[in-house]
């Protein structure tokens, strides 16, 4: 089935982005860069995952309900990301710079 294939591909992509976000959280050097990793990779991962599951949903309204989770998480993570970056800046945390030795 084409739909099943597309759904599984989306699920796979979701898993990939989630992993990339976690690797970013572990490897990136400071608060700001880690926020980047979370805000972009994780949210895209969740979007792919929800879209993949929505393709397999029993009814249209259930698919919409699944997809409706995404904007909620997006808005929340955008506001929290800005709040934490703003507070970090206010505390005088300077962004990590590459030491060009």
């Amino acid at each position, binding site marked *: 089935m084409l739909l*099943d294939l597309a759904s*599984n591909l989306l*699920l*796979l992509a*979701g*898993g990939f982005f*989630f*992993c990339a*976000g*976690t*690797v970013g*959280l*572990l490897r*990136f*050097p*400071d*608060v700001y860069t*880690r*926020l980047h990793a*979370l805000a972009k990779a*994780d*949210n895209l*991962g*969740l979007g792919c*995952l*929800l879209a993949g*599951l929505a393709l*397999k949903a029993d009814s249209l309204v*259930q698919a919409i*309900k*699944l997809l*409706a*989770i995404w904007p*909620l*998480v997006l808005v*929340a*993570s955008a*506001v*929290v990301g800005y*709040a*934490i970056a*703003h*507070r*970090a800046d206010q*505390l*005088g*945390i*300077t962004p*990590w710079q590459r030491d060009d030795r």
Partner: protein
Amino acid sequence: MIGSELLLALLLLVNLGAALVRAAQGPTAADRMLAALLFGSTGVGILVLLAVIQQTPALIDVALTLALLAAISGIAFAQRAWSQAVLGRRRGTASKTEDGDAA
């Protein structure tokens, strides 16, 4: 195709475990909080997958609740809790750990 969802849920759970390492290491309070935020978004993903795997649509409501509420502790952290005293150090560099006791 329940198998693929279960494997993906397992993968996300491994991600949570890795994020738990970041929450334990810090070095700053903000880094721990970021790990908690990752728990929020990844947790929503796992809950939705479990809803499909276990055929329990009610878990989608749980995911929705989590999505609506996960932001509040992050905002409370940024606006009320994160102060210089908690932070300790001005430069947030990964090489130095603030906690000598980081597990």
